[in-house]
């Protein structure tokens, strides 16, 4: 039996209404309890446990346009056929409604996404040496160094493009520090071929001084890898 919003009716006898009322109260409690603390659950009075958002059509009428000073958060199918979060709100004119995609493949959608990062020192010992990084995201520990000033960062998971395919077409930020009072220039390794330095699986970075020589006394480096989201 399901919730009935049309009971009790004026001519109904109580023995008729008893079952309907019983069902309604039970249904209210059950259905409210799906996403909220149930009415008979004193541990989560009225609060949400989690919010389940079933896909909307994402058309002009579904969901309907918001009023001024309100936003509508909903889910819909994206161009990649995944279910993502969207928001619908009035634009700056406060007349027309605009819809924005908030997430893409599960993370906030801003156009670019970080795919790897590492903060590390130069390590010690004979070459080739391994270095335990100070902080990482999607970079294998340890980091390899074949010669002073050159480091190979291997990714735990391959770098992928917006369609999810492995790619070596990504962006990097490479910063270094050596307390030498000289320039520190961080770049992918300058080799004859792009793919020798940059692949979906790893990046080889060099830190050189103003004379173009690999720096032997690098104190700290940090690398961030980005791709189009």
């Amino acid at each position, binding site marked *: 039996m399901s919730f009935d919003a049309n009971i009790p009716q004026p001519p109904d006898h109580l023995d008729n209404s008893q079952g309907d*009322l019983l069902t309604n109260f039970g249904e209210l409690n059950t259905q*409210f309890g799906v996403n909220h603390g149930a009415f008979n659950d004193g541990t989560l009075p009225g609060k949400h446990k989690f*919010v389940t958002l079933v896909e909307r059509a994402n058309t002009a009428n579904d969901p309907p346009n918001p009023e001024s000073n309100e936003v509508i958060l909903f889910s819909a199918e994206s161009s990649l056929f995944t*279910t*993502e979060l969207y928001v619908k709100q009035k634009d700056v004119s406060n007349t027309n409604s605009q819809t924005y995609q908030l997430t893409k493949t599960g*993370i*906030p959608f801003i156009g670019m996404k*970080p795919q790897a990062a590492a903060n590390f020192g130069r390590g010690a010992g004979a070459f080739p040496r391994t270095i335990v990084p100070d902080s990482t995201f999607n970079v294998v520990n340890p980091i390899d160094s074949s010669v002073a000033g050159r480091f190979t960062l291997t990714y735990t998971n391959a770098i992928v493009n917006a369609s999810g395919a492995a790619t070596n077409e990504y962006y990097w930020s490479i910063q270094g520090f050596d307390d030498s009072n000289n320039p520190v220039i961080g770049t992918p390794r300058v080799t004859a071929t792009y793919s020798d330095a940059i692949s979906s699986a790893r990046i080889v970075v060099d830190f050189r001084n103003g004379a173009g020589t690999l720096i032997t006394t690098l104190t700290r480096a940090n690398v961030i890898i980005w791709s189009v989201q």
Partner: protein
Amino acid sequence: MVYKPAIPQINDRITKSQKDILQNFQRIKQYWNIDHFDMTRSEVANRGMHKKLTLPEQSSDPTTAANEVAVYSKDSSGNTDIYWRSESDGAVNKLFSKDKVALGGLKLEAYCAFNTTNGDFMQVSVVDIDNPEGRKIDVKSINLSSVTVSGARTTFTINFSPVLSSADYFYTIDYRQTKVDVQFGLIKTRLQIQSKNNVAYASTCTTSKLVLESRILATNGSGLLAADLFCPVIYVEIWTVS
């Protein structure tokens, strides 16, 4: 006042049931109003809508069917962070990490774009097409209090507010060059903006600041030169693992 989902029973009399039914309706109203607009709200259009979402921590990730996602919170190293789960019991991703947006592994701790002459944060003006006088949106900084310029515009101390939890952060430094070379004495030279490099790392990168310098790019150069000779604005981002 306790909600009773199993009333009225078939043998109950109205004198007993009336009180139970009344209490049930009152409990529904009370709990409903925590996160939703009152069902008797005078603004009829708001009835059924949310005022806010209060998300107490869940002990496990909720299940999701096809074509639906779930937004919820759970503990992450002592913080109550917001997560979402993809359809069909898919991947679990953190959306917010202690008041910062989590971008699938990193979170932006601080950001600024500043003027290399005086350290003022850059302000972006956006014109409202419906307002002839224009409308300025102030895009200055995130979690930064100021940039201190010193050393004749060669050194820039970026002051974090609040301080960061660790000095093992990642940073990006970008700048728009208006000149390729600048005159330095009798020669033309190139410059680079980098983290300040004539002191220990622990003095340059701390939880309370990041110090940058405008350094000459020469084969054996050690000098600094005013940054605003070749770049008017420097952009800095500070990231940590989320």
